[in-house]
């Protein structure tokens, strides 16, 4: 429950403060957000399966974000930033879908 409250708090904070995204962060933030979402859904699934571990969650969250940003950075340096970003989004989207599907199976049995 507390993590959900944290998420709500973060969204409200973002709406109230409406922070300006710094220019250097703009290419990385979308991918980083997707990667973080992937980690969050994975954590939810793990919690339902009873194998949630806060250490694993923190590390996977941070490493997801960092790796996603690195991939975008590398892609930009190589001139294939758009394609690589698309690839990352596709992979992360697949993972999110499969995690959500697992959560659905666990909770609804279907």
């Amino acid at each position, binding site marked *: *429950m507390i993590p959900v409250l944290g998420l709500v708090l973060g969204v409200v904070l973002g709406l109230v403060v409406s922070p300006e*995204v710094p220019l250097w962060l703009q290419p990385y933030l979308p991918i980083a957000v997707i990667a973080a979402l992937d980690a969050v859904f994975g954590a939810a699934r793990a919690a339902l399966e009873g194998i949630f571990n806060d250490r694993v969650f923190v590390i996977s969250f941070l490493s997801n974000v960092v790796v996603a940003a690195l991939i975008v950075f590398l892609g930009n340096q190589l001139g294939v930033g758009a394609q690589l970003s698309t690839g990352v989004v596709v992979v992360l989207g697949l993972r999110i879908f499969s995690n959500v599907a697992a959560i659905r199976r666990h909770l609804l049995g279907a």
Partner: protein
Amino acid sequence: MAEQPREQPRRTWRPSLGTGRPQGPQPTTAQARRRLRALVGQLRPARGQLIAAALLALLGVALVAQVRSTDEVGLTQLRQSELVALLDDASARVDALQDEVRQLEDDKEQLQGQEGDEAAARAAQERLNSYSILAGTVPVEGPGISVYVNDPAGMMTQTMLLDAIQELRDAGAEAIQIGNQRVVASSYVGMDEDGAVTLDGTTLVPPYRIIAIGDSHTLAGAMAIPGGFSDSLRGAGGAVQVVESESLVVDALHEAAEPRYAQPVPPTTEP
């Protein structure tokens, strides 16, 4: 998390697209729901919960910021074809607007030209008025002074009359009439065979009136200068009376002759 990872049989690795994390033991639906309830009901701030909450708060802020900036920026997210279409749209619109600008500027120039004509006509009319007054071809009215001169002995000299005209002009008289004659730029003072003073060849027969249009106080002051026209004529035995007036009419006209010798120099383009 209250539950510890249970011991589970070592599983063989199998490739799974999508989930990079280890597969937990597949819980039954009842188990999963119980865990969900437990998680939802858990308000005790354990360390893991707090860390997860902090990360999720960060995610929330980033999410909102990203959505906001996407709303704002837009263009950087578009594909090349969309950008090209946008550029085409913008170019077409720019062309249309430039056409409009050109048309409007043409209209503006036309209107300004008409206004210029009107202004030129107005300026020309004003110039005509002032030249007419200067040349004495139109009657004028305005404030000024009347100088009644009576000189039955004929003591007035040419110099005195020239003095009078000069004093009036010096005081800013814009139109001067002496007797029935308008004093203009070409007016001259002479003397006939009997020794009487003439203006433009016509003998002045006293008594007569000098009318000057201008600032009446200044003109009256000019007439009162010691040693001036009034002073010297009175000294010679004549009578001079100056009357300031709010409204006087100078109705004597001067027939402007076409100049026979003087021709205007054509204006040169170079200064």
